[in-house]
């Protein structure tokens, strides 16, 4: 599946180990798709501390709010998603209220495996009716994989009933070729390990879930001439004092960054069947939106190369 498709995907899940820049990637992809004329909604899942709100300087809510041309954002909270889902099944508001105000029901939902994830995913599916593309900024990988696994996993528990029908719908949705997962990663060894593990888990999904793209953030493409790295290393080993020391340590860090980027690319190429796009170390712009803009430009450029 060509990586170019991520901009055409109907449903895009973005995840990655903590600190790998997945929210940046999610927003960059959403903006890129919107810039091509699609109506896009970027969704945070049950976020208690919505990052997007702070970045965009707007109040995000369960109901999508505009965040730019063609782009809305929403924070899909569990209780609101539950009300929506129940309303779809039990059209009488009075009964929905009766269910929701019952303490036992809350306990019940708390203990029912996957019920939380199912209503969240059901809301995400519902958003597909209003938008050309839904981009989901998922929680960090461990939790994201269990969330995506829920429809398949809990189906056996519910042989009949509306919940089962929702689950069946979600299984079909996740298996569609235009439902895709994008992983954010860093060239650091442990992050690469987790990226490979996540890829293996998702590649093992039956029915399959498409994962066409890994975005390698804060990478430094290696200078083909390795000599500068050796020279910097030799000089840094002298441990000069003062400013010279600081400058050389900065240089050494970037030399190491080039090497771990090369190693990350080798390992990902060997173990992950997905396109890897390198987003170079940015000059750390203070404004997160400027960073998003740079990542967006880089992704658009890289994805265009694939389709050419």
């Amino acid at each position, binding site marked *: 599946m060509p990586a170019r498709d991520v901009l055409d995907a109907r449903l895009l899940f973005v995840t990655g180990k903590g600190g790998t820049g997945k929210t940046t990637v999610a927003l960059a992809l959403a903006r890129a798709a919107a810039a091509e004329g699609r109506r896009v909604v970027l969704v945070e899942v049950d976020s208690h*501390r919505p990052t997007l709100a702070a970045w965009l300087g707007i109040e995000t809510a369960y109901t999508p709010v505009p965040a730019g041309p063609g782009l809305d954002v929403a924070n899909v909270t569990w209780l609101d998603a539950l009300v929506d889902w129940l309303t779809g099944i039990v059209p009488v508001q009075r009964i929905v209220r009766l269910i929701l105000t019952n303490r036992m029901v809350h306990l019940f939902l708390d203990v029912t495996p996957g019920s939380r994830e199912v209503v969240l995913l059901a809301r995400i599916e519902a958003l597909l009716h209003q938008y050309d593309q839904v981009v989901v900024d998922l929680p960090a990988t461990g939790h994201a994989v269990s969330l995506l696994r829920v429809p398949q996993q809990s189906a056996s528990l519910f042989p009949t009933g509306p*919940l089962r029908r929702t689950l069946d719908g979600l299984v079909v949705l996740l298996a569609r070729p235009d439902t895709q997962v994008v992983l954010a990663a860093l060239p650091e060894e442990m992050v690469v390990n987790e990226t490979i593990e996540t890829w293996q888990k998702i590649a093992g999904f039956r029915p399959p879930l498409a994962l066409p793209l890994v975005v390698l953030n804060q990478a430094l493409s290696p200078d083909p001439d390795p000599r500068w790295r050796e020279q910097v290393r030799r000089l840094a080993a002298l441990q000069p004092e003062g400013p010279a020391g600081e400058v050389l340590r*900065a240089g050494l860090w970037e030399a190491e960054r080039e090497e771990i980027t090369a190693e990350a690319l080798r390992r990902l190429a060997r173990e992950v069947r997905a396109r890897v796009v390198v987003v170079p170390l940015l000059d750390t712009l203070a404004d997160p939106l400027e960073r998003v803009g740079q990542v967006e430009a880089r992704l658009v450029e890289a994805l265009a190369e694939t389709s050419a």
Partner: protein
Amino acid sequence: MIPPDPIDLLLERRVIVCVGSGGVGKTSTAAALGLEAARRGRKVLVLTIDPARRLADALGLRATGNDVCRVAVPGAPSEGALDALMLDTRATFDDLIRRLAPDEVRRAEILDNPIYRLVSDSFGSSQEYMATEKLYDVVVSGRYDLVVLDTPPVKNALEFLDAPGRLARFLDRRIVKWFLTPYDENRVFGRVLVGTSGVVFRLLGVIFGREFLADLSRFFVAFRDMYDGFRDRHEAVVRIFEDRSTAFLVVCAPNEASLDVATFFREELLARRLPLAGFVINQVHVADAGAVNVREVLRPLLADLRPARARVVLARCESAHARLRAVAAREVPVRDRIRRYASPELVHREIPVLPEPVRDLAGLDELARHLFGEREACPGAILVPGRSDPRPTA
């Protein structure tokens, strides 16, 4: 007399819980604390959470399940030892059931129950809950002087702190009774239930399917008279958390998102009167030298390089240093805000970004040196070591 440094006192506790957002070096910090404590003659267990095998990576271990691995610590006295354990959520849950179930039959009944299997594998908070369960287990075993718990990366601090309560609520007598009622004494599902509960229960039957409710009832039946055991353990875990021999250490990185999480943890810990031990800020970039004329300061060192080569090295170092300064400048306000939380009783450590991620004992050793301040020269550290240790001054 100089008062003892809070970080030295930290190692004398019985439990250290490392909390914070993901990707900030929580696992490495936990392992480095364990390493140093072992060197000081304590028997230490570092307990971490399985999915990404973080600790295994850091310690170069390759173990599965709930097996304890002994880590060789060069230079540790004979009474000191460092063990590492990666939590296997499912195995821990199974162990718990084996311990609490009254007999063999019931044990099998629960372990084979489809709802149990799903809950123990992928229940929203199973990982968090089982981390605390395992913590209780090893603390009570008395085999260790110190247990360092590396918590799962959770978005919301409450999720971790509330995990033990969740299963206790799950097995709340009232809900169990409520679910068991329609099935008691072989009554059929359609029996008359009175009032709101009856209506709601029937609705749940419609929504989730009767089969599920029947399974759930069997599940609760299987757990009958084990509730006290769960509740007692929950209360015991809470007592461990609240105990003064426990310390919660907030680990973060100098960026806004991580600061938010750290701030939230601090508030939560204070509000719940849980023992906050302080802050470790990892991955700090410091550029002290200011606007350096890179050519000038490096020229003497580059004398033996051919001019073309020297130019390449200069250009790269120049851009690297500019980038370092930009990053460092951006981190200053975040570090200042964390410093405002500092007090003489609290740990406050800023750890420089290390040239390579911690992935073996040598890396942990370097991290421990930064944490505990016995710093000989640390070759390759990105910054001037002296600056990485701004203890609260007043």
